């Protein structure tokens, strides 16, 4: 992959080297991810039609975004696991045991040392939970990578072990409520960053996009790769920025419910704007965006990420090429354990407590999201944004059907059909390319 000559070619050479390409190729959009975005838009607009536009109101978009977060966070890790030709069935149980740990620490253990409402309370609980998630991942990863027990078996055992452990932590009793500051991670108007902060985040994102495009162009020129035509760069930059600002606008159009806004105004002394108090981007969505960015960076720009894809593509060749495959696989399990802990924080915060069934069935949703997002079970293929979009597609369907009053069995049927259709599309596509 790396270019061996050091002398940068002249600009004329580069421009010449770029072959004439079609419109879409010139834009260099990942067609899979683009297709997912289109599918998501079709689902949303379809529900909009069926409900006379009521579905497209900001409150619904905010709800379904928040509902997808727990699954989407883990799906980014599951993509790496599946790409490395492994599987993790224990994610739901890890969410359960870590979620219960958060709740017990905040409600029972830590107040004895720190006192209730101590500002460090939730930070300590979060740190312990993240460490626990990573430790569970490390143990499972060690057994898979170094002892050689198939991951299906190890994590199937984990599914049972950690669900049992969840029960043992409290003997099945629900723990509620959690620390008020921690609850912000669950979203809702009080768990959102507010209107002004949302515009700032949006603005920073636009600057980030411009910087990324510019630096990518600089890099390509440096190494003599073909450049994207200037108009394509501008188009991609403009559209991405508009999409970001559109999303911020959407989140800001969701106003605090009047009663809640009045209470908030009375508490803080700030007046409510005449057209309502904008809620802004919910914290869980911020967490998901951060996780997606970091995971994408790790998967595509770090040596570890490249190794995972190499192992998935051909494990024997990667090992012969000197990659420490065992350590890489173990790291992948540590990563997904950590992500389960992040997801558990969001789920516990959203329910304002931990129940015995927290995270039950997640493994199936997470694997489905990852696979709908284009991850291949034969390994080596998958993208992080695809997995997040897969989770969004599933939660849009479930939320839309629930919004229209369809019962949960119908929602399950739809989820199953979409899963199969998405993978069928993928399979046909790949076969045609091959």
């Amino acid at each position, binding site marked *: 992959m790396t270019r061996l000559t050091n002398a940068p070619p002249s600009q004329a050479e580069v421009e010449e080297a770029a072959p004439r390409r079609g419109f879409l190729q010139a834009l260099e959009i990942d067609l899979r991810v683009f297709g997912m975005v289109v599918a998501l838009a079709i689902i949303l607009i379809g529900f909009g039609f069926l409900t006379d536009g009521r579905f497209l109101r900001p409150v619904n978009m905010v709800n379904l975004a928040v509902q997808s977060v727990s699954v989407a966070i883990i799906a980014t890790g599951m993509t790496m696991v599946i790409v490395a030709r492994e599987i993790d069935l224990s994610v739901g149980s890890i969410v359960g045991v870590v979620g219960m740990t958060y709740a017990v620490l905040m409600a029972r253990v830590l107040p004895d040392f720190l006192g209730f409402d101590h500002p460090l309370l939730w930070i300590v609980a979060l740190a312990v939970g993240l460490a626990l998630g990573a430790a569970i991942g490390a143990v499972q990863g060690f057994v898979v990578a170094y002892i050689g027990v198939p991951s299906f078996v190890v994590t199937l055992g984990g*599914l049972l072990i950690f669900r049992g452990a969840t029960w043992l932590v409290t003997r099945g009793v629900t723990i509620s409520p959690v620390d008020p500051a921690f609850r912000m991670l669950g979203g809702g108007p009080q768990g959102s960053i507010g209107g002004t902060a949302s515009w700032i985040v949006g603005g920073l994102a636009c600057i980030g996009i411009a910087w990324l495009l510019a630096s990518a162009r600089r890099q390509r020129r440096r190494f003599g790769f073909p450049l994207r035509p200037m108009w394509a760069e501008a188009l991609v930059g403009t559209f991405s920025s508009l999409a970001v600002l559109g999303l911020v606008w959407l989140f800001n159009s969701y106003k605090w419910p009047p009663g*809640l806004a009045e209470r908030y105004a009375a508490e803080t002394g700030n007046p409510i704007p005449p057209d309502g108090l904008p809620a802004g981007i919910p914290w869980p969505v911020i967490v998901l965006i951060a996780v997606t960015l970091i995971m994408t960076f790790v998967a595509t720009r770090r040596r570890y990420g490249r190794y995972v894809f190499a192992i998935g593509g051909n494990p024997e060749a990667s090992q012969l090429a000197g990659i420490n495959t065992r350590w890489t696989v173990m790291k992948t399990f540590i990563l997904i354990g950590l992500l389960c802990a992040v997801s558990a924080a969001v789920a516990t915060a959203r329910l304002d407590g931990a129940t015995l069934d927290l995270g039950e069935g997640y493994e199936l949703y997470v694997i489905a999201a990852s696979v709908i997002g284009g991850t291949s079970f034969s390994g080596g293929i998958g993208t992080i944004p695809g997995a997040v979009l897969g989770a969004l597609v599933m939660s849009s369907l479930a939320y839309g059907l629930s919004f229209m009053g369809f019962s949960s069995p119908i929602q*399950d049927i739809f989820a199953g059909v979409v899963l199969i259709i998405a993978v069928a599309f993928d399979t046909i596509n790949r076969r045609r390319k091959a």
Partner: protein
Amino acid sequence: MKRNRYLIALLAVLAMIVAACGDDGGASDTTDGASDTTAASGDDVVVGISWNNYAQPRWAKADGPAIIEAVEAAGGTVIEKDANDSAEQQLADVDALIAEGADVLIILAKDAEAILPAVQRAKDAGVPVIGYDRLISDPEAFYITFNNQGVGTIMAEVITEAVPAGNYAIVKGHSADPNADFLREGMVELVDGNADINIVCEDYNDNWDTNNARNMMDACLAANDNEIDAVISENDSMATGVVAALDAVGLAGTVPVTGQDGDLPALNRVALGTQLVSVWKDAFGLGKTAGEVAIQLAQGVALEDVKAPDDLQEHVFPEAGVDAQTFDADGVEVWSIILKPTPITQDNLNLVIDLGWEPQDAVCDGVAPGSVEACG
């Protein structure tokens, strides 16, 4: 998404292993029928209790101590065995209890049908059997339980009194669990039959899942512009999700929510005013009844002449009075005492505290002093 197929397969393997062990236990047991058939007074009665799964907190907290207290008050003693949630182990446990000299058995059956061979052996040995909390499908087994069908009706009564008209949301339990439908049937007359009540959302929740309840409530609120006036949740853990959803739109405390089980978080919400009612089955009352009925049966009182303790507290007192009633369980008629479930609201919150179900400081956590009587 339903239960995992592989989990079932694994459990099947486990069941086979346990079954093998259980058979051994049964085969080695040859000392059946060593006990006296009747005892003259309560003085030397030995009451055997076979628990299905004592690890669940409820039994150790309330039922067990209440039974022991009632039995010991009459001068008897108690021997116990726990089957760890295994129907096979429970068969062996019952054999062992009979062998150890139990005069009467209180059985919390894992399964209404699977326990029948053990009940037969008890009958052969002349030991009367009480089906505790869960039915045993044998006409000679006495049945002591709560009016489970009545729980849905009680929820409907309490919430329709608070909200006589308006938009209702109904959050039902697991669709494959008949209890979800029993509860719903109990509400039909008061809710569906009321022209002023408009049911705007209603759905099952797989596995009585809290997260599903939250998701459903989010969608329900959005679909109805937050114009929901009351929520009937069939249990407390789903109510946790419902109240979290209401809280996110500032309606927690304004929109009444039901539940059942008397879970600590739910009782705390009742104290805080974010949940209207948790229908609670007073396990102390159930245990006391079982203890006293056990003594009567051991003394040779016929099934139809058994009486519930007449000093049972008013909130659990059987609606049918102290006399044993017949109960029709899918064609099998058994003699029974059916206690009354108790709606716990802010007004009678002191009940759960006074009886020692949950401590006051936990129930009243975060409650402003003076706002709720039970919290002081």
